[in-house]
């Protein structure tokens, strides 16, 4: 530990080994995991790295008695569905925990239903209960813009926002709030709730994935399920993704997951109805081109089953 000093103009300036401090928190481990498990998302990763270094420097400064006040850590994640907002929030909770900014490091993921009550006097206890559960960790509010419904002035969402704002201000040491949702709707939400806007310091935008990134994501997903593409299968999937991206309701990684589930279904069907009676392990784990080319996307340019509602991640 470096020597403590409160004197800014001290002649013998205590030096601090930032690297050692960095290693002590094991932050690199989490960042590496983030790199490994999340494909692409370069701007997001850069922001997380920046935030992590800010918190680290802040911590070191605190050891020297240079306090700058507890940093506001409330965040807003905006992006299209399936761009990894929940996954990043989970990692964020871990990073904040390693740096000692939250005590427990758990993530409580909620939506409007969990916060807003159904009758007068129901909202406040409901919101407070969720907040109490999230204390010591991260409160992740998915589709946060639904909290505010301007078209209905008797909506209870406003009450919930009020309580949230109060907690975000008064209990900054106890919990970190992350709001998530589509970019344009979140912008509108912040526009009509200036109090919320000023309390959220970090806005992180999640870009859409490119076709190649989606193929790598697919490979990663298959790997975790003990499947793999054949060479032709991978090419076919690349083609599939490019077509799928053009059709409506495309939900990035979530669409990929659904496509893979359907491909697994077709593969099972193919193996079952196939003439080959003895199957090798290789047959069981390989998705062939025909499993993917059978998709309706190739026939009429629409996915097998259209999702009814849009969802964010």
């Amino acid at each position, binding site marked *: 530990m470096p020597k403590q000093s409160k004197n800014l103009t001290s002649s013998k300036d205590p030096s601090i080994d930032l690297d050692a401090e960095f290693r002590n928190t094991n932050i690199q481990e989490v960042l590496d995991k983030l790199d490994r498990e999340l494909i692409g998302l370069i701007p997001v990763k850069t922001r997380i790295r920046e935030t992590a270094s800010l918190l680290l420097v802040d911590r070191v400064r605190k050891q020297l008695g240079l306090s700058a006040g507890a940093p506001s850590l409330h965040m807003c994640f905006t992006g299209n569905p399936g761009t990894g907002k929940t996954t990043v929030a989970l990692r964020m909770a871990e990073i904040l925990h390693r740096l000692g900014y939250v*005590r*427990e490091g*758990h993530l409580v993921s909620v939506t409007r239903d969990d916060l807003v009550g159904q009758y007068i006097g129901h909202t406040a*206890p409901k919101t407070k*209960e969720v*907040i*109490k*559960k999230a*204390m*010591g*960790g991260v409160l992740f509010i998915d589709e946060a813009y639904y909290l505010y419904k301007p078209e209905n002035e008797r909506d209870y969402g406003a009450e919930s926002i009020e309580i949230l704002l109060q907690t975000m201000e008064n*209990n900054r040491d*106890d*919990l970190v709030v992350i709001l998530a949702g589509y970019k344009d709707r979140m912008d509108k939400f912040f526009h009509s709730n200036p109090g919320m806007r000023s309390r959220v310091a970090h806005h992180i935008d999640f870009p859409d994935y490119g076709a190649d990134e989606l193929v790598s994501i697919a490979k990663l997903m298959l790997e975790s399920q003990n499947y793999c593409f054949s060479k032709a299968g991978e090419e076919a999937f690349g083609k599939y993704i490019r077509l799928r991206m053009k059709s409506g309701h495309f939900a990035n990684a979530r669409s990929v997951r659904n496509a893979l589930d359907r491909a697994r279904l077709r593969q099972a069907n193919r193996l079952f109805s196939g003439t080959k009676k003895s199957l090798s392990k290789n047959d069981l784990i390989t998705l062939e081109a025909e499993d993917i080319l059978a998709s309706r996307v190739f026939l009429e340019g629409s996915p097998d089953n259209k999702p009814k509602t849009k969802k964010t991640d």
Partner: protein
Amino acid sequence: MMTNQGNIVTQGQFSFLPPLTDKQISAQLKYALKNGWAIGIEYTDDPHPRNTYWEMFGNPMFDLKDPAGILLEINSCRKTFPNHYIRVTAFNSTRGVESPTMSYIVNRPKKEPGFSLVRQEGAGRSVSYTIHSYATDKPEAERY
């Protein structure tokens, strides 16, 4: 032999110790949370030892991870009832146990008048004894 120095009501855990600080309460809450016990906050203005069922302040709290939320609730209860007895109860819901495993007072009235001894003469010169709290002479909510 233990002596009751301040002439205060001693029931539950830690009642012979000086009042717990918020930090000490947090540590106790943390222990309860670590064991997965649900925590409730209760208050009363009747200090009789046989008064087991106190009023509940808010809902019992399940699935919490951190004591900060409970401490918040304790403090809001103290604000609402500054001159009541307030206790924290941890409930263990494990099958076969299903009962409070921890209970301690976190707030008490500034002045506790104590108890008097009441004698009742029965048949054949027999006397039965009971205690009576001076505080309960006044109606509810005006006691302290």
